[in-house]
């Protein structure tokens, strides 16, 4: 819980400081102008180019791989197959070490590598990859949740394999993990219900769609180690996993992670890096793999879900019970998806005061590409159902859906998950709803063909974490901060620069931020779950305080006073005679030999044994979204005339970045609600990998009016009372937009995305039903 993290030293905003202001993005000009070097921009003149060999089905036994012709092709230097890897096949993962470096006798999803070809040029590698002969026998793979859960279904993972499912009670099924969250007596509460809403919902698979596709360069070092260049969100996890697989020490595996061009969760867990590490070590050469957008779309995705929900309401609109069964379609290997399921379903009851609740969730293996983390984790899937249920209940009771939410929302400190591992509200969430209603003009009448919808979203952030930071105050008054957070566009570097500038009294332009290099930067667990502001932010803050303490002590010694007679504050050492600027005090303290002051900060949150999330959430993200649409009933197309997103952020450390995250999250959520979906055929092949048929919003698709705002009560566990906030605006976008479409069309839509065809079909079916 936040209390474990919260300390007395969160700091107060300096009235003349940088924190809290619209400070310009650190490195923003380079990012916007194209000067920033992404991994694919790095030049390795000696590198071999790599092409991955795959087969055009999602599930097959591999009977043979013949590389003779490929190896004889011009420019080919080497081919890696499973036969070149240690036996048994090395596997990796986080919760389950189930993913093989490359297909292990069986292809379990479309795109799983069967071989890799390294050649002097990409064209040569591609040409050779096409002539690698893979003899395979297609198996009746399971590509949908229904197929995977059917009796006698093909099992995606071999139940007898001791490295995977052996000893697992569910091993004879495709369910890799399940979770039940329950409190109260459903039957008893149902007796009090004036209305029970029951429906089924579906949420499609979709991809993170980072503008920078995946890329990895693996380079053997002169001293038997390995350097990996990869745009990864978790360089230290990459280091640990690859070092373990290839049998090197952490110090021998050097991960360089240039700022990613968007991650959205898709760049957390290794994918091709282990394969590339083995290839580089086999050939003793630098090898380089750059995927295009379509290949990246095939490689990373969010879990789809099907949901069945029953919700009871009193006639006044009190929710008396909520029962949800949700299945997440996670793919062929675990990755982080079991945790997507547990975290998503934990908040499945929503931020409401529920007398009884039952959430039954399963993470289901299918022969589809591996799903991983994505902005919102497992919350948007379940929120789509839970929030649509509440909208439907309000409509059928003739009540205002916003006021039904306000009526049931928990107060600050009140439990919304009950029981041993309760979840408590950690903010004034009603304020976000009220602000959103005001911005949306909630009670204003609408013209014909318009509809308005509201939803709220909640997500638990990190339940454990460790971030370490170093801050160096140099002799000339400049500073360098080392922070392992990956800045993938969220603006982490800017926040560290603002913090250091304020805490040390250094001008912003004299602060340098170093990240993305495991040889230079101390440990950070990961850049995920909107944790960095809270965890790394606290580590940076503590490193700055450590610098100040040292300067104070050095200064005291140099001027011959007891350290206890002095104090420090942001940017200054306080003496009996008055404040001495910190850089001046540091110069006096350092003396003639100069040198520098090196501060260290750590932020650690241990998990809690037995907790379904592994620990109490460090904070919750809360959001309220309101959509307004104008529907063209003839075609089913709609225009989003207005969208409002309001999140509880604790404190805006940089309002322009908060706005950017809020707007970006809302637009991404809108795309995922109204057009995005991955579609697979009956052989498990992805039908729409390219940008032509995997649609994301363009500027013409964003709402005509987009309003965002933040609730600030300075009540977060992070520096200056901040909370993480980058996922809030995507949590309930689907449900808000769906409610708006439902209001305009007069029919309830239960499946995403909200395509024109789907809306047209639903309205036509309703019209025919009405006639019949």
């Amino acid at each position, binding site marked *: 819980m936040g209390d474990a993290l919260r300390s007395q030293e969160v700091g107060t905003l300096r009235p003349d400081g940088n924190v809290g202001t619209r400070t310009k993005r650190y490195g923003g000009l380079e990012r916007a102008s194209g000067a920033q070097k992404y991994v694919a921009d790095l030049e390795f003149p000696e590198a071999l180019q790599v092409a991955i060999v795959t087969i055009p089905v999602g599930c097959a036994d591999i009977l043979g791989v013949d590389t003779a012709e490929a190896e004889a092709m011009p420019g080919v230097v080497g081919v890696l197959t499973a036969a070149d890897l240690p036996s048994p096949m090395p596997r990796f993962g986080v919760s389950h070490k189930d993913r093989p470096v490359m297909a292990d006798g069986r292809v379990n999803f479309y795109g799983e590598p069967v071989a890799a070809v390294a050649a002097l040029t990409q064209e040569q590698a591609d040409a050779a990859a096409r002539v690698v002969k893979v003899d395979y026998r297609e198996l009746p793979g399971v590509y949908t949740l229904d197929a995977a859960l059917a009796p006698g279904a093909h099992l995606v993972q071999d139940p007898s394999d001791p490295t995977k499912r052996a000893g697992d009670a569910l091993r004879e099924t495709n369910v890799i993990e399940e979770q039940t969250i329950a409190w109260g007596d459903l039957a008893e509460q149902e007796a009090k219900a004036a209305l029970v809403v029951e429906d089924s919902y579906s949420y499609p698979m979709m991809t993170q769609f980072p503008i920078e596709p995946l890329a990895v360069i693996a380079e053997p070092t002169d001293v038997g180690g390995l350097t990996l260049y990869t745009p990864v969100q978790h360089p230290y996890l990459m280091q640990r996993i690859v070092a373990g697989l290839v049998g090197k020490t952490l110090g021998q595996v050097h991960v360089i992670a240039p700022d990613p061009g968007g991650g959205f969760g898709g760049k957390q867990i290794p994918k091709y890096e282990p394969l590339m590490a083995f290839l580089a070590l086999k050939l003793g050469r630098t090898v380089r793999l750059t995927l295009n957008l379509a290949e990246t779309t095939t490689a990373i995705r969010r879990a789809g879900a099907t949901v069945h929900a029953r919700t009871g309401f009193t006639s006044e609109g009190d929710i008396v019970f909520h029962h949800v069964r949700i299945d997440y379609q996670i793919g062929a290997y675990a990755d982080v998806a079991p945790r997507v399921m547990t975290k998503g379903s934990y908040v499945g009851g929503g931020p409401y005061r529920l007398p009884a609740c039952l959430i039954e969730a399963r993470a289901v293996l299918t022969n589809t590409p591996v799903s991983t983390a994505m902005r919102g984790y497992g919350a948007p899937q379940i929120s789509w159902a839970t929030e649509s249920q509440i909208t439907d209940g309000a409509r059928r009771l003739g009540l205002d859906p916003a006021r039904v939410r306000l009526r049931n929302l928990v107060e600050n400190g009140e439990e919304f998950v009950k029981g041993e591992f309760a979840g408590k509200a950690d903010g004034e969430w009603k304020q976000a709803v009220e602000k959103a209603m005001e911005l949306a003009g909630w009670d204003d009448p609408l013209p014909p063909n318009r509809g308005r919808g509201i939803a709220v979203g909640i997500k638990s952030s990190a339940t454990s974490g460790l971030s370490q930071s170093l801050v160096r105050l140099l002799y000339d008054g400049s500073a360098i901060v080392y922070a392992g957070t990956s800045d993938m566009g969220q603006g982490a570097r800017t926040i560290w620069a603002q913090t250091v500038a304020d805490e040390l009294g250094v001008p912003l332009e004299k602060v340098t931020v170093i990240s993305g290099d495991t040889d230079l930067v101390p440990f950070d667990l990961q850049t995920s779950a909107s944790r960095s502001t809270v965890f790394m932010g606290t580590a940076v803050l503590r490193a700055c305080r450590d610098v100040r303490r040292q300067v104070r002590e050095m200064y005291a010694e140099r001027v011959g006073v007891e350290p206890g007679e002095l104090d420090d504050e942001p940017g200054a050492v306080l003496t009996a005679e008055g404040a001495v600027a910190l850089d001046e005090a540091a110069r006096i303290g350092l003396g003639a030999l100069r040198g520098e002051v090196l501060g260290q900060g750590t932020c650690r949150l241990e998990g809690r044994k037995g907790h379904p999330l592994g620990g109490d959430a460090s904070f919750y993200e809360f959001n309220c979204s309101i959509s307004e649409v104008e529907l063209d009933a003839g075609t089913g197309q709609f225009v989003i005339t207005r969208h409002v997103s309001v999140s509880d952020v604790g404190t805006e450390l940089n309002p322009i970045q908060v706005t950017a995250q809020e707007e970006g999250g809302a637009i991404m959520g809108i795309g995922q609600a109204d057009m995005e979906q991955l579609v697979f055929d009956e052989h498990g092949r992805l*039908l729409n990998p390219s940008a032509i048929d995997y649609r994301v919003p363009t500027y013409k698709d964003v709402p005509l009016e987009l309003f965002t705002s933040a609730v600030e009560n300075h009540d977060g566990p992070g520096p200056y009372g901040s909370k993480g906030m980058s996922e809030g605006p995507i949590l309930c976008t689907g449900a808000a937009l769906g409610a708006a479409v439902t209001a305009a069309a007069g029919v309830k839509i239960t499946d995403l995305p909200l395509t024109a065809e789907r809306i047209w079909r639903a309205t036509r079916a309703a019209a025919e039903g009405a006639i019949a």
Partner: protein
Amino acid sequence: MVTYYKAHAVADALEVLGRKDVDARALLGGTDLLVGLDDRLDSAPGVVVDLKGLADETPLAVEDSGVRIGLTVTMADLVANPTVAAWYPALVQAAGVVGSVAIRNRATVVGNICNASPASDTAPALLVHGANVRIASADGERVVPISEFFVAPRVTTCGRGELVTAVELPRPVPGTGSAFQRLTRRWGVDLATVSVAAAVHGDGRIQLGLGAVAPTPLLVDLPAGTDLADRAVLDPVLDEALAVATPISDIRAAADYRTAMVRELAARALQAALDSTRRTQA
């Protein structure tokens, strides 16, 4: 490895495009060709013949009798021409929604029809505007009505060793109105799920051009003088006329939705064409 060849004259281009020993592809804006190559899916041609620097090319020529769209004329060029806008509203509306601003600055009208996508944006409009396609070869020139130009998806009557040098549009008779309607999955940068161009000609003819509902763009004639304002008259006429549409189900839409939408868009396009006639008369 693909060879790049920069042609300086039509004859020069024809010579390379006519070679039997190499698969040559013409390059104009590259908005279809290069995307295909980039996806590493299409088999790469042996040589790409760049036509953007032809010295003997007439770009956009407006004459009393009509308009000649040379092979380097881009969508943006077309949209910016006031005479084209006045005479051919359907074409300008269609050209104005191709891709994005950046794509319209590169993509050419000739390239768009030669790519012969069933979902081509300009084809339905060119059909109702009565366009003719001028095709050059070493043996001389021939002119084909655009209604006979499209053969199959990605196939036209322009064969190996031939080059479309221009699309020619006759000047509409006075009182003609036209309009274009398109359905897409999103509002910006998309391919048509269904498209319809309509022309209500000053001489009484009524035509529809249909996109993405058959292997090639289709031209349909409605009975001359049909009262477009009277749905009781129009609906059965449309039912009969649109029976030629044989849409498929694919990743973009199901067949029955396309069938319903071509009907919906046809009615809207006809109404808009009629309105543009009235505007011209006023």
